[in-house]
């Protein structure tokens, strides 16, 4: 258990606890419902209370994400890369805090948790480098038979709803969030219901990394309650159900069907996040736009 979360540090000093809130539109509000729920560590010990987001919070988050999308998708790829590199730097700087939180959340040794945090930093770093290569790798020139220039360029899909992995509280989270952001989308993330604290701390990193307000929004709460609203929301363009339990999957797909929303084809079992990533998520989180223009004098 982390020092920071102890009521006292064992030397008699009473520490100041941190209230965990939501992250919407660049601010840290409480849930409009006023609900919280206790977060326990892997051994069942109380760590903190986290906000229990409601569907109204989710609605606000989508509004914020749409606004965030406008600025983020309009930024240059280079600029997005700079911001994500900055996120990696900030994560690196708070490695210790994250290691403690991940150890608590996932029940890992501090050593193993530190490894996981390092992998998370590297993951963000890897995706940050992708921002200005997506076009060249997934897009291209189409050699059409006619007097036209024709090219295809991947563009962000828009607002992406993410059900974050349940188990891997930080590495898993950044592995699904970073590609959303790197591809130029904004995100509404439902954090792991039982292990939300690293996600909340990640928000503090994001808030100080020049990421425009609303680009990433993180809700703590119950995915079973919130995810179907995300799936059926008309202003959400894609859904990553990675952290949704098997029992929830069909419901989400059915809810998403109404808007023919893209639902990422991800396995029910959480993958080993330590495996090296592939650019597949980037491809899936972009729409290819084909542009034609005549070639004439």
């Amino acid at each position, binding site marked *: 258990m982390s020092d920071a979360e102890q009521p006292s540090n064992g030397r008699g000093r009473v520490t100041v606890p941190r209230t965990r809130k939501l992250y919407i539109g660049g601010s840290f509000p409480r849930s409009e419902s006023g609900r919280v729920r206790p977060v326990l560590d892997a051994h069942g010990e109380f760590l903190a209370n986290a906000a229990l987001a409601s569907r109204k919070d989710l609605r606000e988050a989508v509004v914020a994400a749409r606004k965030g999308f406008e600025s983020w998708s309009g930024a240059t790829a280079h600029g997005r890369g700079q911001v994500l590199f900055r996120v990696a730097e900030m994560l690196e700087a708070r490695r210790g805090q994250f290691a403690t939180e991940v150890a608590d959340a996932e029940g890992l040794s501090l050593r193993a948790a530190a490894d996981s945090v390092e992998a998370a930093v590297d993951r963000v770093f890897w995706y940050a480098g992708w921002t200005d290569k997506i076009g060249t790798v997934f897009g291209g020139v189409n050699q059409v038979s006619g*007097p*036209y220039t024709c090219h295809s360029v991947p563009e962000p899909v828009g607002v992406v709803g993410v059900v974050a992995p349940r188990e891997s509280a930080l590495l898993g989270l950044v592995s699904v969030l970073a590609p959303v952001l790197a591809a130029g989308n904004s995100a509404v993330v439902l954090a792991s219901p039982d292990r939300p604290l690293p996600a909340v701390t990640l928000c503090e990193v994001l808030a100080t990394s020049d990421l425009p307000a609303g680009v990433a929004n993180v809700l703590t709460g119950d995915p079973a309650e919130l995810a179907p609203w995300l799936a059926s929301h008309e202003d959400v363009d894609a859904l990553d159900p990675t952290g949704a339990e098997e029992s929830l999957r069909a419901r989400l797909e059915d809810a998403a069907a109404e808007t023919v929303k893209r639902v990422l084809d991800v396995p029910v079992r959480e993958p080993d996040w330590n495996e090296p990533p592939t650019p597949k998520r980037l491809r899936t989180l972009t729409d290819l736009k084909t542009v034609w223009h*005549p*070639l*004439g*004098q």
Partner: protein
Amino acid sequence: MAHSPSRTRGSGAPARLPTELAEAARGGRALESFLRGLPGVDAVGLEQRAAALGARGVGKDAKLRAIDTAIGMVDLTTLEGADTPGKVRALAAKARHPDPGHSATPRVAALCVYPDLVAEAVSALGEVPVGVASVATAFPSGRSCSRAKLAEVELAVDAGADEVDMVIDRGAFLSGRYGEVFDEIREVRAACGGAHLKVILETGELGTYDNVQRASWLALLAGADFVKTSTGKVSPAATLPVTHVLLRAVREWYNRTGQWRGVKPAGGIRTTKDALRYLVAVREVAGPEWLTPRLFRFGASGLLNDLLMQRRTQLDGHYGGPDHVAVDL
């Protein structure tokens, strides 16, 4: 055609124009800004439409009438250094009776010759209602001084030419001296007196369809009765897309002014199939009203014989051979 389409002037003296055009027709800056303000022409889209319309077929029954229409639109042309009075007389005979074996064959619209042969053409045609057109203004290059060009026009008209085919100064046009080109057409227009003025843009030297469109409007503003694509001495000469631009310009001119102006593609139109494609373009781009020799001409020499051969095929029910129509030598 029962009467000569060329002996009456279609459009008349510069009539009252709508304000925007009247401004531009004053020449100078106003003209320049008008020409530069014309909408662009997208080359690929234009060529595509020309090709698509070219695929439109004229069915069997309409074909004979279309061929007759085309024959009546031919400016039977000889513009060779080796032209002689004899050659002109031979052509005149052909113009009078294109196909002696089929007396109902329509006459061509006009004979088109160099200025020094106008008198010969006029006398050879006599009272036959076929016009005489003369190229002038230092055809085909247009490279001479203004006085010489005007003198040439006057000589041709005095010799009896009903129609004058002038060339524009492409050098001046391409270097942006629109006013000069405009003034020259104006002067030629005046020198023509009652004769019809066709203005040859020599589109093959203008480089872009935007320029072709500008040159068309420039000529119309200066008082051209016809805009004509080419001298036939420069390749490419007439093409379907270029003719589309000219047809569209005269149509627009009519829409804005109520005045009828004509189009003459010249050079490179050799077969009946080509000619019918042009007629389809006339019909679709300008409108069916333009399907008359008063508003549309073919500048061609070899075309007439192919039209005659195809006409015989239509009438006789078997394919014609070249030795059954008169060679033009």
